């Protein structure tokens, strides 16, 4: 059964009781919440995702609950917890959905060491993947959100899960996190994109999430073979340009964006080496999504 087939009332009800068991391949997550608006955001973003039976094994149990106390009645706060342990500072309840998304990223980054975890967007076409590692503010999410509406399949906007044995990259096809100016940029470039209502005043500014295109959600279990590593950077007014990048430099850039490269020791080093070896590596500067899409169309041609 898909999440989108459950009525809004039923969704809210389940979230507030035992929780919703949602497939986010390769993981299964149990989500509980007493914040009513969260159900609507989940329905909008994860409608195509499968629900699992309540007694299935879940990798992560997460909750976003109203913080207790008098404050609830005039300025409600919500708290994130994983396996019942609260983490992060409580945030205003209207930020609960973005907090859930960040919290899920944290769960994966902190616990899923069966993968080499890279802070990167991953998109795929014709079985070949582009890995876009980049620090926040580089325009990675904007680029990723634009390209997945121009023939590329979304694997992930934040987390590349590298299987060190097969060399394949898994994504979770979760929504793309858009901040500040990117929200309008994507609305202009892809008027049909489905976005949550923008949430102002988060610690990352105004944030909205963009639904993964339906095809990405349907094929979420298909990993992809990395073929390119592209380090994006957005610069206002820049003409889109792809420039070859030294392998050694690319290696360092990827290592810097890895959450658990050190945990894997020598095996992690070798796996990153193989990844960089098999990929063509570039830097990419852009300001216009249309130009970017045209250049990415030419990749591998």
């Amino acid at each position, binding site marked *: 059964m898909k999440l989108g087939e459950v009525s809004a009332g039923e969704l809210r009800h389940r979230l507030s009781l035992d929780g919703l068991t949602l497939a986010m391949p390769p993981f299964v997550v149990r989500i509980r919440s007493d914040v009513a608006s969260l159900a609507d955001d989940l329905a909008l973003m994860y409608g195509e995702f499968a629900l699992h039976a309540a007694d299935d094994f*879940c990798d992560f149990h997460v909750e976003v609950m109203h913080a207790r106390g008098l404050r609830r009645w005039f300025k409600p706060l919500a708290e994130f917890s994983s396996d*019942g342990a609260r983490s992060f500072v409580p945030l205003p309840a209207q930020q609960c959905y973005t907090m859930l998304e960040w919290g899920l990223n944290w769960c994966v980054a902190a616990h899923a*060491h069966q993968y080499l975890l890279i802070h990167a967007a991953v998109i795929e076409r014709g079985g070949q993947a582009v890995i876009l590692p980049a620090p926040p503010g580089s325009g990675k999410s904007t680029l990723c959100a634009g390209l997945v509406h121009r023939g590329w399949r979304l694997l992930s906007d934040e987390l590349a899960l590298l299987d060190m044995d097969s060399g394949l990259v898994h994504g979770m096809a979760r929504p793309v996190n858009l901040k500040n100016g990117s929200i309008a940029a994507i609305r202009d470039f892809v008027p049909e994109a489905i976005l949550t209502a923008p949430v102002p005043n988060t610690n990352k500014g105004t944030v909205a999430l963009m639904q993964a295109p339906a095809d990405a959600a349907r094929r979420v279990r298909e990993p992809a073979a990395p073929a390119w590593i592209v380090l994006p950077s957005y610069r206002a007014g820049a003409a889109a340009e792809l420039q070859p990048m030294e392998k050694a430099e690319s290696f360092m850039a990827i290592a810097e964006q890895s959450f658990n490269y050190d945990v894997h020791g020598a095996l992690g080093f070798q796996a990153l080496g193989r990844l960089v070896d098999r990929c063509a590596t570039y830097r990419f500067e852009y300001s216009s999504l249309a130009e970017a899409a045209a250049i990415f169309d030419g990749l591998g041609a």
Partner: protein
Amino acid sequence: MSTAQGRPLLVRAMLDPAHCNGLSLQQWDLLVRQARRANLLAALGGRLRAQGLNVSVPARVWLHFESALLLAARQSASVQAEVRLIGKALAELATPVVLLKGAAYLLSGHAASAGRLFSDIDILVMRPRIAEVETALMVHGWDFAELDDYDQRYYRRWMHELPPMHHTRRGTALDVHHTILPPTAKTRVNTAALFEDLVALPGLAPLHVLSPEAMLLHSATHLLHEGEMDHGLRDLFDLDAQLRGLGGAAMDWQRLLDRARALGLARVLYLALRYTRVLLGTPMPEPLLLALQAVAPGRLAKAALDFAYTRGLRPQHASCTLPGSGLALSGLYVRSHWLRMPAHLLAYHLGRKALHHLRTDKTEPA
């Protein structure tokens, strides 16, 4: 008092990994939650693997154990390297540097170190040398976090350790102690006696560990003076491993008892033995328990402590909550402060913390 039947799933699994055979997926789910909250996921994974039981753990579940084991292995390698650097930095002072807790279990090859996750390294040095130790560490790249004047004074005047240090390049955390309880604590520890029977770590001068008896007494002291029970069950299993390491019911109990008396920790030992036996069924010699009866708390105090510790030492997960658990945890928190300092200091310190909390709460972006 709790019985074997009332033991949480995690405790049963830790004591007898074969208990995990045939668990349903739902039970595995619960076990992973409890183990993660108790910081025992890697330790349990290690026990399952040691008995070859990992092959019968469902693959999706085993990934969690494997991931925790990988992290634990990496951390123990880092701690092994880090303690060598600490030893090198302090070698010229020609004073013993005693590893405590996790690092001590690890470097002395103790069973309690299996699958352990570390947040920092604790060392103990003689009080008269502490200023030189501080200087030598700072010369070699360790530094203090930003602390306000009050916290600086609090540590230096009332505590048994320097403010927490970290290495400026490696980011590793280090706690430097000069004794094992604050000087203001109600339990008076004979610190000089701690240094009498140190065990040198071969090839790692000036690094030492406490004698097995003193190490156990320190673990007991730590557990019984801790106010936050997030690691309570993990620390109880540390004690269990050490008691079994000393020979369980066959141990040379007289030596342990003598050390406990010499260090001023007989009551702490009594309580530690009481709760490992009740909650984990750890084997221990009857004559030792009898000998310690003399230092047992009174009937009312014992009832209160039993109430608090049989709850506080369960995994801190909702599935393990008993009626009164919240009260027990608050009680243990207050008790830990009560044990740490006299009432007037405590009132001042907690008042100050509460005020500080209010202030930071106000400045938080809303």
